[in-house]
């Protein structure tokens, strides 16, 4: 194969205040190929794409398109060069018609006014080329997300793109829709277009990609042909450790005697359309159950189902042996379930309220509006947890938004411990927290578990999950694919399961 790459990015560096997002990253795109850009969260995929599409200017490095050095300063300029991107969130106008969306900003003109006939004819033709046959005069919002995604792609194509970038286009599509998208991509490939495809779904990567580039921590790790790179190798390169069993000794063995015989929460066939495929999961008091899986594997979705945020449309939940329906967090709280969400800022803290108010919020919600905790009792509870969890603050009346991330997390932990829960779901409790606070929080979790709390622990850092969990449920592509007992779990095992090399 002596095909020349159509686009070469080399030695790309980009720093944001405090972080080097890209360090010497590179990417080569060949005509007629789908190139998967892979990496964990924060690996620099998006930044690299932003540099390529002119959203960000690189600090160093060069981009060559057809052998010529280019330096797109804005999206429009990149588009003129033939580089277009379709982002995860569809950025079209839902209230405009499909045809208008495709041609917006470059309507063909007649002597007087816009040439609507041409627009509609060409829009229909463009979509037909992607095997989509719809009425283009209807508003975009009247079509399902998959079609909207296709319209976004059609729009990208009418700009005569040589390079098409798809940033997680499939995260909101179901399997049939993904297949339709892939068919369209295969057609484009045949026309010689270079396509960059970003996804967290491994199956999709292998279904469509010809070539894979892996980034990690902003650095270029390697470029591989998809058919020569095994799934396990791909995961290893993404995670960045030659995972060996010795480095992770069996974690603190589950104290079998302290674990309850019966599960506190038992889910059978629990699932939701568009969310999780039906799964079984038992959670025992006195045991930490970890959820292992890559980003997008359904870890948070599982937690949301168990906390009543998303409604399950199949399966049953039993709490303490009783069949229940969880339709709202309020109900889950009443059954003694607590949930520290992943997005601390938007789903956890109430920033303008004081630490005291944040700590007693869930307890007060559980007591109900008329059983008001007197201020003095509130302060006593807040002070108790500030001391017990080591929350560093001058006083409990400070707005919680002024605390550091680690201390906010501890305050959220306090919020739930104050309700005396039976089960605690921790979704990424250590994200964005410095290492010292991280260890403290892990210690707290362990200690609570020994006191008889059932804990569901979610983290994107597999080593962390392995360290605290007595049992790990492994997820892939929104499906639970198995469980591993804590003693047998090491990264090798878990990743092998995710890769599907082992049943």
């Amino acid at each position, binding site marked *: 194969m002596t095909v020349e790459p159509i686009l070469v990015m080399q030695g790309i560096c980009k720093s944001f205040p405090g972080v080097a997002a890209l360090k010497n990253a590179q990417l080569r795109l060949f005509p007629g190929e789908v190139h998967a850009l892979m990496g964990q969260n924060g690996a620099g995929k998006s930044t690299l794409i932003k540099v390529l599409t002119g959203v960000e200017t690189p600090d160093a490095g060069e981009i060559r398109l057809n052998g010529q050095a280019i330096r797109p300063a804005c999206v429009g300029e990149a588009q003129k060069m033939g580089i277009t991107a379709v982002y995860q969130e569809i950025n079209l106008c839902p209230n405009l018609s499909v045809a208008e969306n495709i041609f917006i900003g470059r309507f063909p003109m007649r002597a007087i006014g816009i040439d609507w006939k041409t627009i509609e004819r060409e829009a229909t033709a463009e979509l037909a080329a992607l095997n989509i046959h719809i009425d283009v005069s209807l508003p975009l919002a009247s079509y399902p997300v998959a079609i909207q995604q296709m319209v976004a792609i059609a729009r990208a194509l009418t700009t005569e793109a040589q390079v098409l970038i798809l940033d997680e286009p499939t995260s909101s599509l179901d399997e049939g829709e993904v297949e339709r998208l892939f068919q369209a991509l295969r057609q484009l490939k045949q026309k010689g277009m270079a396509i960059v495809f970003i996804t967290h779904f491994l199956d999709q990567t292998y279904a469509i990609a010809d070539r894979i580039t892996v980034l990690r921590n902003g650095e270029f790790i390697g470029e591989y042909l998809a058919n020569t790179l095994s799934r396990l190798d791909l995961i290893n390169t993404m995670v960045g450790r030659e995972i060996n069993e010795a480095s992770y000794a069996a974690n603190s063995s589950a104290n079998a005697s302290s674990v309850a015989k019966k599960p506190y929460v038992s889910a059978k066939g629990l699932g939701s359309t568009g969310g999780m495929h039906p799964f079984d999961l038992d959670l025992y008091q006195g045991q930490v159950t970890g959820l292992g899986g890559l980003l997008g594997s359904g870890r948070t979705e599982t937690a949301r189902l168990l906390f009543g945020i998303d409604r399950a449309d199949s399966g049953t939940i039993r709490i303490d042996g009783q069949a229940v329906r969880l339709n709202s967090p309020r109900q889950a709280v*009443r059954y003694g379930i607590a949930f520290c969400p992943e997005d601390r800022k938007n*789903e956890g803290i109430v920033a303008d309220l004081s630490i005291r*108010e944040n700590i007693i919020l869930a307890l007060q919600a559980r007591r109900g*509006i008329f059983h008001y905790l007197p201020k003095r009792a509130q302060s006593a509870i807040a002070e108790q947890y500030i001391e017990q969890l080591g929350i560093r603050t001058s006083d409990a009346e400070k707005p919680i938004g002024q605390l550091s991330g680690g201390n906010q997390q501890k305050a959220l932990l306090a919020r739930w411990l104050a309700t005396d829960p039976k089960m605690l779901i921790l979704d990424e409790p250590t994200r964005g927290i410095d290492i010292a606070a991280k260890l403290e929080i892990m210690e707290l979790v362990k200690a609570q578990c020994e006191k008889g709390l059932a804990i569901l622990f979610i983290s994107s850092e597999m080593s962390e999950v392995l360290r605290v969990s007595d049992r790990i449920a492994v997820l892939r592509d929104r499906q639970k694919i198995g469980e591993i007992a804590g003693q047998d779990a090491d990264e090798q095992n878990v990743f092998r399961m995710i890769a599907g090399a082992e049943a």
Partner: protein
Amino acid sequence: MKRLPATWRDLARHPLFWPGVTLLLLCLVNVYFNHSFFDIEVKSGHLYGSVIDILNRAAPLMLVAMGMTLVIATRGIDISVGATVAISGAVVASLIGGSLIIQNGVQTYVSNVPMPLAIVAALAVALLCGLWNGLLVAGAGMQPIIATLILMVAGRGIAQLITEGQIVTVYYEPFFIIGNGFLLGIPVSLYIVALVLAIMLLLIHRTALGLFIESVGINPVAARFSGISARALVFWVYAFCALTAGIAALIITSNVKSADGNNAGLLLELDAILAVTLGGTSLAGGRFSIMGSLLGSLIIQTLTYAIYSLGVPPEINMVVKALVVFGVCLIQSEALRTMLGKHLFRTGEAA
């Protein structure tokens, strides 16, 4: 010497400081042009004076502003309160109606329907309006401004239907007490305001209502994830807001002894929103102050009074009002204050 500025700064940071200062300045302007502004005299056992007059006239606005405060604190808005006033007013006026009957040579006033029943009916209709708004906002998830716009537009039509397109005059004297009567020398309307205020303060400070409303206003998702049923809360807050509008309608109708579907409570929603804003509650929701909204209502009424007593020609008094409100809002803007502070600090340093 050093401590004094610190306490001053603390005082200036108090949420009610700027509304208070504004009100004080407006009063001073009034005193300057009308030296008897603060005079209160007793006439036939009733207190009379500009201040009493302002308080009495501000009563409906104060009531609606209190209800509006809770709605705004949950990140919402209710622009239908004026229409709700029109509906409630129409209901109470048509039910009472009343006529003068001379029985055995004695003049007696007779109402169509017993007055307590009419009042309960008017309040129930107001509550119904609020439940409708709450259903749209909390139940159907509509944007508050659009949801309440529906009733704002439809409400005056409904009021017209009730009054059959006429201005309904009330001839039942006992009803006039609500808007014009005095009790122990003080206008009855102020007792009503005080009662509603007391109930609200009790609910806010002796139950978790205040905490829940603020949580929902600041971060609805976090509030829901903490086990608060945010939807139910928002629903009842709209219901309560409409109820305050219903109470205001009683005072307004009683005061003018008639119900005019077209003009009763006209633009009241905007005054109420303005009062809440002047009182320091952010339209973005979250932290709120009932007392601030009361001060805001008084600012608006005092301003109106000042404009009239200064003899500003009616053609331009709206413009004057707008300018003052603009100025007050500027003073209250945190961003502007920091900017000015920086500027003053810099020039001070240069000198």
